[in-house]
């Protein structure tokens, strides 16, 4: 079902961040190598939630188009964050990279759809998308190192 309201989309953003954080915490448990990187990603995910919620709660007013801002198909962005028991480090890096791509697309799409409406919310979405893009680049370089 398409998501149209700001409330739904914020809830989806929170879920994506939390699911992502859990994957990174799983990686931190399994792979001592780059453990600090995984934990910092998980921590950043949870900070993103705070920033997104703050933007939404501070800008949502009775007058702005909170109920009609979006046309998001959640199925396009759902994450498969479960890692196979015997997944190699490369598998894990690839999974994380694919997850970041989906999340970047979510934030970019959501920001584009609501850009003329909620102002602060699309801005924070784009900020998070940029941070995730940096993260994707970092994952890319880790993958390259891994060979």
């Amino acid at each position: 079902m398409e998501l149209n309201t700001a409330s739904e989309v914020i809830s989806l953003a929170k879920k994506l961040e939390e699911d992502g954080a859990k994957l990174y915490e799983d990686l931190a448990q399994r792979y001592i190598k780059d453990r600090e990187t995984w934990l910092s990603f998980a921590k950043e995910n949870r900070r993103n939630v705070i920033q997104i919620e703050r933007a939404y709660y501070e800008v949502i007013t009775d007058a702005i188009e909170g109920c009609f801002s979006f046309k998001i198909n959640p199925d396009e962005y759902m994450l498969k964050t479960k890692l196979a028991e015997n997944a190699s480090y490369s598998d894990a890096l690839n999974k994380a990279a694919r997850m970041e791509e989906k999340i970047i697309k979510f934030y970019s799409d959501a920001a584009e759809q609501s850009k003329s409406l909620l102002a602060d919310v699309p801005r924070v979405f784009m900020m998070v998308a940029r941070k995730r893009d940096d993260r994707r680049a970092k994952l890319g370089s880790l993958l390259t190192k891994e060979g």
Partner: protein
Amino acid sequence: MALLEEPIKKEVLELKNYINGEWVESKSDQILDIVNPATQKTIAKVPMSTRDEVNTAVQAAKEAFPDWRRTTPLSRTRCLFRLKELMEKNFEELSRIQTVEHGKTIDESRGETRRGAEMVEVATGIPSLMMGYNLEDIASGIDEYVIYQPVGVFCHIAPFNFPFMVPLWFSPFALATGNTFVVKPSPRDPISQVKLAELVEEAGFPPGVYNVVHGGANAASILLEHPDIKGVTFVGSTEVGKGVYKKCGETYKRAIVQTSAKNFMVVMPDANIEATIPALMTSFFGNTGQRCLSGANLVIVGEDNAFYNKFLNAFVDTASRIRVGYGLDESTQMGPMQSIDGKQGALGYIEKGIKEGAKLILDGRKPKIIGDYPDTCFLNPTVFEGVTPDMTIGKEEIFGPVASVMRAKDLDEAIGICNASSYGNGDAIFTSSGKSAREFQYRVESGNVGINIGIVAPMAFFPFGGMKDSFFGVLHGQGRDAIRFFTESKVVIQRWL
């Protein structure tokens, strides 16, 4: 379907008055049920307070005034800062309470909570905002200055449509400037005001400074007649508002009386359709059309039938797909009407529209509801085409999710249509032409004007405008106007020999 948790855990709340810092059970035998409009479950009971109880509340406010008036602006501000912090801490609970007592969606309730909190934020600026001004040496050795002082006890008679926010257009400014206050919430949805009073108590406002007394028209009359009430703030219908304003004149009270509306959304051929449609959805159907700033008449300008048809089709198509349901379901875009009476009123207008020859192009009378809820208060978005300004639905306030579509050949005619209305609350133009926007802004007789904005709700640091039959009084609620309304100026000329 993400259904949020209900905010009220107790079976049925029994609401009390908050008088002189105490929660007092009313002795009245007239008790009304508060019903969740979506589920039709009784969630609270509210007393229609006795005359004595209303008088006791005013007396408490009167007795608290001298000490509160002597409390420094900075100390008063600190109470408001604490209140603001508590509102943030209880933000979600306050919002969900509004959804279950009023019916609005959770986004709308959160918006209302945010707006209410913003009022408190602005009022914390009182140490600066309440400053007077002066001039040395108006004559040699003689200085003159003006100071602003509080007046006494004020009251607010609240509407049902924004049960949490509207009293906050007034009370923080009244309290910040050193006055004391009595709120009479709407008897239809008073729970969020009770919760707010709990936070006021926790924020440490002294007893008697802020009081809540429940009741209906009777309690309102007692407040209007009370000699110790120095000023009244009222939001409601024009019919009742005129009576309130007249009574205030007779009893020498200050008054802010904000009343009904019939707002025009004027769409020019150069409007950005993609951005305009969601803005108009919020305008016409947000809060289920129950707001003084709701769009009522959609005026599509120009003789280009291709544009007219394209725009109207987009409008109707989007309206037809609005998800109507319980506001605690995050996917709901429009909740039920607040009451059966409200729905019956809107249905009556729909019948009139049909009888008077308007074309019903989207019929919301058979509600399509998301989820399994009784349809008692539900009414889906409804659109009429071919409405003229002299039709009943073209000129009277419906206060429901009913849009009337009109045509105007040019901007001049559109402005003429807007100005012919007896109301003047929140008209808007959608255009990419600065010239058209400026012309509209300049000429339209409306206290709040939108340019590419569908709901022209002023921020807390601006006054809430209104003209003609939409407002009675001189100063408005919110912002600097409110500060002047709640204070008296005192001019001092001093000479030291």
